């Protein structure tokens, strides 16, 4: 099964990136990918092409995440209280700006349901179409649309400062 090792080494970094956005935690991301890869390993002989293996692993990963949501209900929300102020917009502090976005976005994502987070990651990180996302999650396209809308609305509600930060991030320093 050397092909399996090759597949794992080649695709784990990308899988971990998605899993990190789904879980918000390095160790949980590793656990999620590890479990999905273990299932792929057990089905390896049936998966005759690496594309099939990756699709199978990703589908398993998303299903594991959402089924966890079904079993345990919503992931507990993290109360972030007052978030750091937007940084000074002087030259030389772009790193600080990016860091603020990361902190705020990570905490905001953790305040979504697992399914909302999965839809956002599929649509805006992995760039899947609504139909592809629906297929991966095993839900209807309508569900993907509604969950996406709710997820974005929730992001705006829990982290309104994100919009401002994105504008700054996209356009550069404005003053």
């Amino acid at each position, binding site marked *: 099964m050397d092909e399996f090792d090759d597949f794992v080494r080649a695709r*784990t970094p990308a899988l971990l990136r998605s899993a990190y956005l789904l879980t918000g935690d*390095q160790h949980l991301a590793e656990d999620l990918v590890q479990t999905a890869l273990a299932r792929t390993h057990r089905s390896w002989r049936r998966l005759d092409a690496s594309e099939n293996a990756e699709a199978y692993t990703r589908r398993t990963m998303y299903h594991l995440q959402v089924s966890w949501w079904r079993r345990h209900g919503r992931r507990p929300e*993290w109360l972030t209280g007052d978030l750091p102020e937007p940084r000074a917009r002087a030259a030389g502090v772009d790193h600080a700006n990016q*860091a603020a976005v990361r*902190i705020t976005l990570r905490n905001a994502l953790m305040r979504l349901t697992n399914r909302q987070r999965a839809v956002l990651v599929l649509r805006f990180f992995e*760039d899947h179409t609504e139909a592809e996302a629906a297929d991966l999650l095993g839900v209807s396209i309508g569900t993907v649309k509604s969950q996406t809308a709710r997820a*974005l609305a929730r992001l705006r509600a829990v982290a309104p400062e994100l919009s401002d930060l994105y504008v700054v991030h996209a356009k550069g320093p404005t003053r």
Partner: protein
Amino acid sequence: MNPDDLRTALADLADEVRPVDLSDRARATSRQTARRQVAATATAVAVVLTAGGFAFAGQPGFDRRPVGPADERTGNPLTEGEVTAATVRVPVWQTAGCPAGDVRLSDPGPELARWGPVTLGDVDRDGTGDALVVLRCQVGENQVLALHRAPDGTVATLGQVVTDRPVVGGAFIAETQVGPPGLVEVIWRDGAVATAERQRRTYEWNGTGFSQTSGPKSFPPAAYDVRISAKPVRLVSNAAGDRAGDLELTVENAGTITLGAAKVTLETPVPMTVRSMIGAATDHPDLVQWADPPLRLEVTLKPLLPGDRTTVTMRLVYPRGMRPAGGILSMGATGDATPDDNQVSFVAR
């Protein structure tokens, strides 16, 4: 919210994850899953056979005799010397990689060790002396093994009394005793709560195997519950133009576990320095991430008993020209019934 900006921000956030090689772990998980399925099938088969009145008598290394008929109450009791010199059949472990099969107790090999004394006594109520030994697999699992004298006079395995699970924080076998004839007493300790009282659990041989007949079956769940809070940092300028102030964070241990060296992570998006720290296990925080914002520090707390709280005071200094920002303080939330209070933000003005 611009979708392109969201894409950029998600990609940026995903950069935080550290790449790791999961090949071995995935294979191990796969094998464990397969083994559990095989074990479940084997258990079902065994139950069916037992219900039908069959027994596995004659299996090499095992002697599954019925409970003490009169004609078996003969023979010499086992001695410690005999036991430690014997080669016996070790039943399967729960953990992958722990060797089963024939094991020489005087030299169990690199993966196994015999620990504690050999306990002598009548384990199977046949009127002769048997023995108990505890074997430890180096990955952490222990099993209590009952030995007796086989009909051919050699030392043989009667059966596995019980094993513990190599789980961090899980209960584990501490020692064994033979009580009145036929009763094996195993003393268990709670791996999660070091101060918890030991438990005495009793097991009996029923002719085909051991089963627990008295004592608790588990320790009460150990509750991990921490609460963190922080006051706003009031900054004042010094002569050099830097702005400094004290961050006072408090952690309360509301659970039932003594926290040995719990860590608080501090994240802040702007450069700053910690000039002093009072009340923690060390006098300075550990720098986890410095070069690439957010700045991430870890503060190791002093041991915290259940119900106690501790306060750490850190002097934060923001360099001249840098607009101060607050940050987020967080502690591990896995297993915490109320994870909401494991994280708090603070402001610095």
